[in-house]
């Protein structure tokens, strides 16, 4: 029983991380209908910026918020400069541009900072604490808390502010939104900015666990895709919950099903997603799209 609870807890911790990257993916998808393959690398790059600042002696939280600001502006600029020229091209063209961004970020990070792993500090205390017989890592809980906080912030932003409403409108019906005086192009850029910001938070929460290196996000991005697919690409809450489910199931299956062990963990997580998709083609919490005939 203790092992079970322990596995669930550590599954929730990694799941929270998958969920936070999935959240960033869903943000961009909702705002612009594009799946951003460069999301993970953008987060990785922001984390390196934070590392540079910390190395220069900037206190943690100052560096944290400065990185968020830089990531936001960076995301905005990427949309304006790189994505905008292909805005009206076929979807796959945009996907290829995103893949281009992915390899650029990865390569430039490796070039500037080398491929050697670097430790990244956590803002939370190191000592794990114990409730009953179960250990909780302080960073794990802290990271999960930060993810939920970001989710809450996004929910409030999209639900209760005029800007949030305008962004949702622009994504849902660009033409009518423009007629109402919403600057649709800028709303898309803002969407990228926010997604970059959420990604940066995720990167800085992940780096203390997996260490900082240019390839740190490739594995996590894959789980993030899985989480977003499971939860449904149209639902931010679903993406986070999807992440938690993937994290927990992956851990439990790896522990309890003997012939699977750690070797086929990923395969099982993916098979699970396929099965969910076959029953609910737009994810657990996604809205089914209805086509007009």
């Amino acid at each position, binding site marked *: 029983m203790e092992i079970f609870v322990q596995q669930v807890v550590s599954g929730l911790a990694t799941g929270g991380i998958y969920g936070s990257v999935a959240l960033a993916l869903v943000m961009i*998808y909702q705002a612009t209908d594009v*799946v951003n393959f460069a999301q993970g690398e953008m987060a990785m790059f922001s984390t390196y910026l934070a590392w540079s600042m910390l190395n220069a002696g900037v206190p943690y939280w100052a560096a944290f918020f400065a990185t968020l600001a830089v990531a936001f502006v960076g995301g905005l600029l990427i949309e304006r400069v*790189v994505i905008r*020229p*292909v805005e009206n*091209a*076929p979807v*796959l*063209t945009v*996907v*290829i*541009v995103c*893949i*281009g*961004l*992915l*390899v*650029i970020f*990865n*390569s*430039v990070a*490796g*070039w500037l900072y080398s491929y050697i792993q670097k430790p990244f500090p956590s803002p939370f205390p190191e000592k794990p604490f114990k409730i009953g017989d179960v250990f909780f890592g302080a960073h794990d809980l802290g990271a999960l808390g930060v993810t939920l906080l970001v989710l809450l912030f996004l929910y409030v932003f999209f639900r209760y502010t005029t800007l949030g409403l305008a962004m949702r409108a622009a994504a849902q019906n660009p033409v009518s939104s423009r007629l109402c005086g919403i600057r649709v192009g800028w709303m898309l850029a803002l969407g990228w900015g926010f997604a970059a910001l959420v990604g940066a938070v995720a990167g800085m929460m992940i780096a203390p666990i997996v260490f900082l290196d240019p390839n740190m996000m490739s594995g996590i991005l*894959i789980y993030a*895709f*899985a989480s977003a*697919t499971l939860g449904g*690409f149209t639902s931010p809450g679903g993406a986070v919950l999807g992440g938690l489910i993937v994290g927990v199931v992956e851990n439990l299956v790896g522990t309890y099903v003997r012939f699977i062990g750690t*070797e*086929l963990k*990923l*395969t099982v997580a*993916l*098979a699970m*997603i*396929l099965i969910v*998709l*076959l029953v609910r*083609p*737009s*994810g657990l919490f996604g809205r089914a*799209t209805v*086509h007009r*005939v």
Partner: protein
Amino acid sequence: MSRAQGWRRAIAPATIAIACALPFLLSNFRLFQFTQVGIYAIALLGLNILTGYNGQISLGHGAFYALGAYTTAIMIDKWNVAYGWTIPVAGLLCLAVGFLFGIPALRLEGLYLALATFALALAVPQILKYFEHWTGGSQGIVLSKPDPPRGLGLSPDQWLYFVTLGVVVVLFVLGANLLRGRTGRAIVAIRDNPIAAQAMGVNGALYKSLTFGVSAAYTGVAGALSALAIAFVAPDAFNVFLSITFLVGIVIGGLASISGAIFGALFIQFVPNWAQEISKAAPWAIYGIFLIVFMYVMPRGIAGSLRLAWTRLARVGGTGRTG
């Protein structure tokens, strides 16, 4: 027949003639690279039939490539089957598996299909390592290059190149015929408007899963040839980036275009090498810039841009003669 059409008809034979001359002009290494181009071209045509013509996005064709490669490798290594027979077997096996995978894929659309197939591509290296008894685990399987028939005086590399070229020609002709006829129209109609296609009596589900199967078969044959050409298969060669590279290839080459598969194959084979030559420090950054610039300049791929240029030229030529 106008002069423009006459020129157009000459393109395919001229390409084949140049391709036949290459083995006698190039070094063995360069020739191996062109063998690889031929193999990629088959895989890209397969993916293009599915994604370009039928509109089903797959990020998992690396899985079928792997299946084809391992079919060939296991048949040669375990059962001593002659290599020539392994290629059609790999194709048929992938046809069956692709068809079966296409049935559940019917329920998924666009992005969700892309991500489901992506999951397939991801799982491949792990699964291959798991069935160690058959696949040799992470060590992979080492093969020997097929010997050229005696009396032709060809080196193994040259022979392999001609085998590949032969398969390319056969599969491209078959593909072009498939897409030009009634089946091809049905495939495209499903992409453009599934409901209207159904209303006109096209069996959407059957065609979609069949297209999936045919597409997988092409990619499987390409995989089988690659196992012969490289004479080695290992799980990590079939990672996710292979599938992504295929997608890059068809979009750069030109979606829904047969010649696009060849342009795309040239791109994915040679551009990474050029990037390496330009900058040793950050070759992939250069590659990424190439990708983005290509998409800015030719949002519909190389074949799409050529088609556009061709129509403009033909129009200019036409008005010149009548006026």
